[in-house]
């Protein structure tokens, strides 16, 4: 028991320590005091309702992309395509919104939006899955390449057919806008946090149930641990691959609702802006566990929002650097901690 707790927490502690040292050096190089910058960061995120609302808003998208990457990794698949799956999900949901009649209530439109967004992500995610299952094409490369292809395609469709002149976004959607949290809790006024946050939490619970309590989930994890053994045990590994990639894409795609229908009420070019790639970090730091993913999404969302809070004193890109440092430190210390633990239990 002690060993598993150690294995779960030690890499995060190492990452935190390394990030703190690098952060201090960067802040000092800018002639500022680390203490006051960190205080500014906390004040601007957890210290007031607006900042906290923004953190929750960012947590929402990152939870979806983090779950998408995590479920792929559980099956031994590395989905680098969450960025374009997120965009495609937002695009199709936006398209559906533009076609639905004005004034429909959110309760009626929400299922349609979820299905549209999931379909957009599932198509983009499913293609690399099929290519892997059918031709053995490595999903890391195909998902990266598809990111560029899909984003270019969406940009073309938006620019050529859908955009409002002089902008990079579509017309406003009037059918079934999803309520913001500020409509329930006044203090969140102005922040983008909306009810998709609850959808994210429900989805995380559903993914946990699927992974650990269903036969399909068991097959998925068995494939991830040892595909040859799973195949021998009667699992259709190719089927698991493409279904998991489609499911992974669908999860990322639903994340598109947060911006397109929860916040802006239109689809905008490159709204994903790195949330898909950060999903990889969220999954790694959350150790591919749905609860861990939610926690990691909250941490990374805090960092992203915190960057904006300190930007007047130190460049907000300090946060990108620290996020990268955290990813590298976790990725490097997980195998090391496991190795040390094994060596000790063997001794």
């Amino acid at each position: 028991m002690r060993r598993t707790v150690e294995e779960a927490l030690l890499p995060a502690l190492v990452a935190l320590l390394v990030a703190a040292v690098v952060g201090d050096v960067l802040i000092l190089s800018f002639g500022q005091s680390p203490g006051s910058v960190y205080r500014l960061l906390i004040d601007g995120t957890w210290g007031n309702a607006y900042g906290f609302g923004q953190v929750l808003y960012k947590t929402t998208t990152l939870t979806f992309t983090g779950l998408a990457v995590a479920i792929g990794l559980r099956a031994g698949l590395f989905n680098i395509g969450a960025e374009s799956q997120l965009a495609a999900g937002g695009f199709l949901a936006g398209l559906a919104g533009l076609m639905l009649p004005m004034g429909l209530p959110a309760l009626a439109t929400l299922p349609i939006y979820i299905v549209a967004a999931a379909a957009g992500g599932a198509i983009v995610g499913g293609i690399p899955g099929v290519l892997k299952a059918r031709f053995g094409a490595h999903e890391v490369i195909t998902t990266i390449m598809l990111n560029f292809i899909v984003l270019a395609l969406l940009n073309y469709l938006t620019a050529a057919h859908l955009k409002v002149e002089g902008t990079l976004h579509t017309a406003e959607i009037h059918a079934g806008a999803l309520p913001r949290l500020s409509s329930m809790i006044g203090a969140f006024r102005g922040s983008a946090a909306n009810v998709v946050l609850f959808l994210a939490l429900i989805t995380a619970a559903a993914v946990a149930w699927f992974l650990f309590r269903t036969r399909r989930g068991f097959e998925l994890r068995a494939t991830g641990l040892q595909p040859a053994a799973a195949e021998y045990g009667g699992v259709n590994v190719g089927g698991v691959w493409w279904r998991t990639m489609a499911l992974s894409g669908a999860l990322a795609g639903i994340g598109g609702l947060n911006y397109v229908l929860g916040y802006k009420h239109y689809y905008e070019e490159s709204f994903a802006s790195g949330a898909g790639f950060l999903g990889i970090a969220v999954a790694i730091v959350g150790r591919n566990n749905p609860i861990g993913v939610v926690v990691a999404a909250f941490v990374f969302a805090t960092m992203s929002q915190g960057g904006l809070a300190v930007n007047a004193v130190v460049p907000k890109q300090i946060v990108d650097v620290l996020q990268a440092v955290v990813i590298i430190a976790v990725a490097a210390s997980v195998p090391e901690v496991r190795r040390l633990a094994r060596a000790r239990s063997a001794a």
Partner: protein
Amino acid sequence: MIVLAFLAQTLRIAIPYLFAASGGVISERSGLIGLGLEGYMLGGAFCGAVASYYSGSPWVGLLGAVAGGAALALLYALTAIRFRADQVVVGIAVNLLVTGATRFFLRLAFHSSANSPRVPGFGAEQSGTGLASLARNPLIWLGILAIAVMAWLLYRTPYGLRVRAAGEHPEAALSVGVPVDRVRYVAAALSGMLAALGGAYLALDQHQFSAEMTAGRGFIALAATIFGRWDPFRAALACLFFAAAETLQIQLQGAQVIPSQFVEMIPYALTIVALAGVVGRAVPPAALGKATE
């Protein structure tokens, strides 16, 4: 005349790809995934611009770029080899690190979040279009040379043989005394230096560094590496082909024949086709992405 202008522009666009793809080939042939190429390029562009600015000499700029690219690649190799971190994760993190760090230090060094001031490059005037002005830029020749040297290194030297052994069957290589990890560190450093030269070419050609100026070129070079089936000459042909497609798109821009977004897709779509093996499958080095036991 039009043909010459077309060739000149194709070459100009291809040079950074040639540098980075030759780096991609050596890295991947040794067993290290080349996902960090974009980061090495951007880091090289930044270090090159800074070194050129403070020294007044573009040659010192190149040295700065090479040092920066090697440092980043060794960071990647250290985590992937010594700590057995997942190469995909660290490769992506390196790109994120460089994107953030270059912007951070841009503000620290030049008090701007977008561009450096004008830095010395090769040739006084910015971007002449003819072949003649192109020929005066030593980086053009270095870029072409990089491919030839890489092919010689891989196929004609003992080190190249060790690289290929490390990428195909590291256990067998180890058993006959090849220091696989050391071979991979050197391959990583070389790939970082080469990609950084590609980035430095961009910065010195434009006489300034601007944030995120590599704009995905590292991934196009990775695509060329794969589409060229991990062979320097075939990767070079892929680079030239991708560059020619871009040139065509730029020259046709007025004509509106094909939307630019579709031309952008060409390298990536071809790479997927090659990996799926519709016309002869591209098979990666067997030990790509795996740490040695």
